[in-house]
């Protein structure tokens, strides 16, 4: 197990290095530091002096990949690429491109907590809702109810998540006034602010996930051990909950866990619609302001989350299925 985790960690670092390199190429080669400076200083009176000053403030006044002016290892280390990479891996994200946005690391740490408060309930709610709906359909399989359920799934998954949010917000917050339209608070207020986004996100994913889980569960029900369980006289609900569901957990974990990193980022829409000051809203703001430093950091943070989620899934396998040994 430990051995496996160490190897896993090594691969994760390798992957993150790749991500780092790719984003660096994307951001600094297409859009040179001079362009960034010009964009951020704005206006017409952009002098070379101002540009140099801006670059110096952010440490962008070096060659991109290779510094010919230096000697030895410094040829490699005295470059933007090296410095950016080292700072990203040591989780020091530096300053945002724009003046007002301030220190990225501080913002990320602060907003991460908010995001988790939204993302975890969303994740749990989505899985609970979808799995129970899928189980319900399974209980009534080969009846008209099953057919209606599958049709409902197809209809639900054909609707853009934006509609769920816009219409849901309109109906529950504006017309019925059950919950505040948007915002964020602490303590009991939190519940009032979060309940609508959580429910809506569960609904938005219900079609896709319930259909998928139904297929996974159905695949299990065809197996011999299910027939055995029925033959020994177990009630259908017990067969489903004790036997089928447990065995279908592996594919379900794979698919739900694969969605885990997207919950953090995917609640991006919900954060921005409901005015929740999390990472997603931060990213959207950065994109609209064309703040590349923030976007670059978020790409890296997102990749870290993804890698962490996948390691978690692998560990979860051993917990769900004792036959799986990680070596």
């Amino acid at each position: 197990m430990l051995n496996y985790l160490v190897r896993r960690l090594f691969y994760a670092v390798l992957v993150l290095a790749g991500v780092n390199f790719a984003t660096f190429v994307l951001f600094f080669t297409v859009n040179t530091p001079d362009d960034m400076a010009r964009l951020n200083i704005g206006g017409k009176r952009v002098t070379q002096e101002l540009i140099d000053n801006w670059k110096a403030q952010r440490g962008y006044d070096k060659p991109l990949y290779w510094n010919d002016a230096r000697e030895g290892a410094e040829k490699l280390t005295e470059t933007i690429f090296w410095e950016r990479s080292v700072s990203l891996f040591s989780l020091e994200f530096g300053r945002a491109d724009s003046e007002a946005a301030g220190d990225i690391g501080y913002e990320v740490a602060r907003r991460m907590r908010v995001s988790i408060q939204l993302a975890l309930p969303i994740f749990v709610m989505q899985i609970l809702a979808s799995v129970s709906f899928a189980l319900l359909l399974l209980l009534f399989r080969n009846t008209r109810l099953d057919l209606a359920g599958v049709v409902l799934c197809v209809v639900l998954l054909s609707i853009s998540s934006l509609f769920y949010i816009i219409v849901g917000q309109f109906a529950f917050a504006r017309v019925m006034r059950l919950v505040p339209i948007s915002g964020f608070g602490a303590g009991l207020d939190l519940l009032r602010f979060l309940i609508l986004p959580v429910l809506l996100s569960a609904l938005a994913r219900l079609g896709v996930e319930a259909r998928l889980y139904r297929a996974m569960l159905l695949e299990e029900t065809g197996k011999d051990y299910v027939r055995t369980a029925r033959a020994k006289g177990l009630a259908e609900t017990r067969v489903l909950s004790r036997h089928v569901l447990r065995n279908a957990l592996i594919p379900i974990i794979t698919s739900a866990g694969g969605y885990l990193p997207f919950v953090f980022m995917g609640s991006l829409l919900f954060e921005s619609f409901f005015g929740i000051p999390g990472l997603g809203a931060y990213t959207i703001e950065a994109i609209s302001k064309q703040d590349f430093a923030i976007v670059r950091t978020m790409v890296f943070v997102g990749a870290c989350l993804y890698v962490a989620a996948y390691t978690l899934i692998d560990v979860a396998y051993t917990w769900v299925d004792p036959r799986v040994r990680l070596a």
Partner: protein
Amino acid sequence: MLKLVLLWTDAAIWLLVFAVAVYAFAVRRQPTLAASWRRVFRDAPAMASSVVLLACLAVALLDSIHFRALLPATEGAAAAYDTRTKSALDLALAPLAESRETTYSRPLAFVSFTKESVEIDGRTERIAPRLTFAGSHLSDPAKQWAGDVARRAAKGGGLGAVASVLLALLAVLRVARQGQLRFSDAARAVWRGETELPWRAPLVTAAILLVLGGATASLSGWYHPFGTDVTGNDVLYQSLKSIRTAFVIGSLATLVTLPLAVSLGILGGYLRGRVDAAVQYLYTTLSSIPNILLIAACVLMVQVFLDKNEDLFETGLERADLKLFLLCVVLGLTGWSGLCRLLRGETLKLRELEFVQAAQAFGVSATRIMVRHIFPNVAHLMLIVLVLEFSALILYEAVLSYVGVGVDPSMNSFGGMINLGRSEMSRDPVVWWSLTSAFVFMFSLVLAANLFADGVRDAFDPRARAFRPRVPQRKLAAAAGAAQS
């Protein structure tokens, strides 16, 4: 005189149409492929949704013929062309596109949505002014409006109904000729859904489309059937224009993924070892970046590139179009890891099978095995992913547009409409028609695409068929017999 303009996405779309035609020709010559496709069309939902898809495709293709009109010649000047690039669809929808009001108006309204202060007999009153175009033919709108709308809708709907009856007759005639049945028997078979291909579902779909479309079309010359947006543009026109954007993104973006995903997937799966490790590393790295962020990053860079090369484009549409094209490329280049993983896994399985071993024993080169033996056996996966992704990408476009990395704001798209509709929902009274219109069109298109994709998946992937909900069938055996006799 016209000057034809071939935009990037136009070229891609027409190439795609050409490729589909070639593929269809190839399918006819290959019995197994043809059988699979027949299975697709034996599925009633797939058959019905293909009608909707074809209608949308027709709109999208019409919208993909672009030209610039020759401006009226001025003395001594060289021939000048209009700076606006128009499409054949714009010509067909000219009454909608050109009857631009000043601001919001409700669907089918003859007065503006917002009230203005007007001075009548020395007093200032807040009234909603008449619209410039919609309903301007009515002399006393308060009395005539309902009757006029009903009459026009009935006329258009009636024409649509006539057309759908004609279509049904054609289908019945075809069934009668093929099965050598009497006309009445054929009609009964079609009505009861007892024919080999489920004709009833597509005919009903076509009838609904024709009646609704007919009514809308006959109203659209005189009213705005779906209202107008904040700048007075017709919402129906925007929705129809958005169909092309959706089609382009849905089809091109997955096509772009194919070369990378297929070549790397098969290479990694077949050669294994270091090549496989490299391929795996590539797609793991790529897929570990949250997709929406990677796309956002790439699109921001595309934006920077376009801003730097402002002078490359003669018209605004050309610029917007290149952005759409590059967005597809970005979506493709960032989205190939899923298909690649799938193909690699399938190749790993295939390479152990006897026919591959036989080929190896005969000394067939690795390249040739991959091209001649592996590729045709994973091609169905490509097809399934292609159709499944189509609808997913259309939905994705809306999200991307919301985030601000979607298509150019000047280009009509469902995402753009939803984005505007969002702020309109917070007005009081609510402006609901933009959003509703986007919803209706997008939902029909995506639902049709999803149903069609399910049909294709079930036909090409035998495992998927097991997950269909089966309802106890009462008249299954009778159906087959009746159609044959």
